[in-house]
């Protein structure tokens, strides 16, 4: 370990200050990227960075500890769970939680769709009798893959050939847009575009959504850069997923 003071050639002292600036966190994005490359390429410079990391990082002792939300560990735990392929798009567990109870909640939410002037019922409200539920193949609960909390309710309006997305509790980080995807069973996600987080979004039902077999498609919402994924494929994390359930 090279903790001893170095009296090397000119520039080494400057490098040690630069390493300190990097660890302190005052460099801009381009400077940080340049320093990151030098850490990989130059062993001596990397040692200077590690030196400052050890000396300055104990300042985190002065930062107040704050609990993250209770849902964070389950989300992480879910993401590291063993699976053949780390592919949330095809993981049945993502939507296994969409149960009859969730459908009842969807029915409760449908009341909001029908009577938009009423305040939305609290999520904890007792679910209405199942008999009140609309035909289940016309409702899909799009829920947080980890907590199972409903984020959106998707309803099919077959008379008008429309798909209606009603946000229940969809929040995203600032600067991110929610993008809706339809994922045919065994297929790749197809973008249905960016949706609103505060008001229902109506769109033409994707071609074939009324046809046989398409009800196995998963609907998912990812957070994407403003305006939607630049690549046409999902790039952000899955905020919600669910599917229409075949009757």
């Amino acid at each position, binding site marked *: 370990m090279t903790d001893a003071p170095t009296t090397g050639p000119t520039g080494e002292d400057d490098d040690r200050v630069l390493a300190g600036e990097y660890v302190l*966190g005052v460099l*801009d994005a381009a400077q940080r990227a340049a320093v990151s490359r030098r850490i990989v390429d130059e062993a001596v410079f990397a040692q200077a960075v*590690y030196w400052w990391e050890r000396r300055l990082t*104990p300042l985190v002792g002065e930062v107040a500890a704050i609990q*993250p939300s209770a849902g964070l560990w389950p989300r992480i735990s879910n993401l590291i*769970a063993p699976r053949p392929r780390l592919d949330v798009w095809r993981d049945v567990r993502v939507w296994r939680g969409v149960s009859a109870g969730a459908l009842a909640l969807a029915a409760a939410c449908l009341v909001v769709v029908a009577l938009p002037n009423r305040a939305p019922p609290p999520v904890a409200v007792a679910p209405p009798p199942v008999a009140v539920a609309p035909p289940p193949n016309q409702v899909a609960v799009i829920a947080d893959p980890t907590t199972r909390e409903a984020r959106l309710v998707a309803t099919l309006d077959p008379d008008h050939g429309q798909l209606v997305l009603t946000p229940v509790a969809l929040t995203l980080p600032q600067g991110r847009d929610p993008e809706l995807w339809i994922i045919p069973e065994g297929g790749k996600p197809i973008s249905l575009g960016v949706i609103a987080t505060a008001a229902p979004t109506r769109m033409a039902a994707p071609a074939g959504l009324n046809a046989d077999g398409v009800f196995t498609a998963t609907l998912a919402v990812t957070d994407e850069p403003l305006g939607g994924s630049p690549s046409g494929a999902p790039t952000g994390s899955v905020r919600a997923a669910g599917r229409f359930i075949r009757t």
Partner: protein
Amino acid sequence: MLPRREGHDTVGHQRTLGRAILVDANTSRALLSKALSRVAQQDADALRYVYRHTSAKLFGVCLRILHDRQEAEDVLQDVYLTVWRKAGGFDPERASPITWLAVLTRNRAIDRLRARGGRVVADVAEAETLADPAPLASTLVETDEDHARLAHCLDQLDPSHAGAVRTAFFEGVTYEALSQRLSMPLGTLKSWIRRSLISLRGCLEA
């Protein structure tokens, strides 16, 4: 002269406070190091242990930089997934486990802040008022001796210089943003920080 980190004789072993057990820094380091070596073998329970004992502190670090709970949790999730994949890269000879975790966390949070660009976060105070008090378990990872040595060296600086260093570290903002926040000329601030780093280096090497 403050005791070196290697001194194992400075702190008592354990004391109980209610039902929580506070362990000294060296024991905490050893337990976390052991847990990280098990994480490297893909032991999910070990990652849970690491999460339980470090997430509140690391979330505080993220939130201080990002001032947005959602973004801070996204970064924290990314951090623990990285720990899951790269715990084998942790070298106890190079850094203590909490330092390794905090470095990773700060780098991710600062990169996220840079990627955000000039966008201003609505209300700094709002993020902090949402804070829940952390349980005693989070005190397992305090880095008492290292922090004491650094605080001693910061105390040797001009108080306004030490304040600028602390703000820079906690907020993770660029020189430019920091000069606006502290209402001082950019050149003067850079000079303060660089001179402070040189002084700190001399003090910390002594």
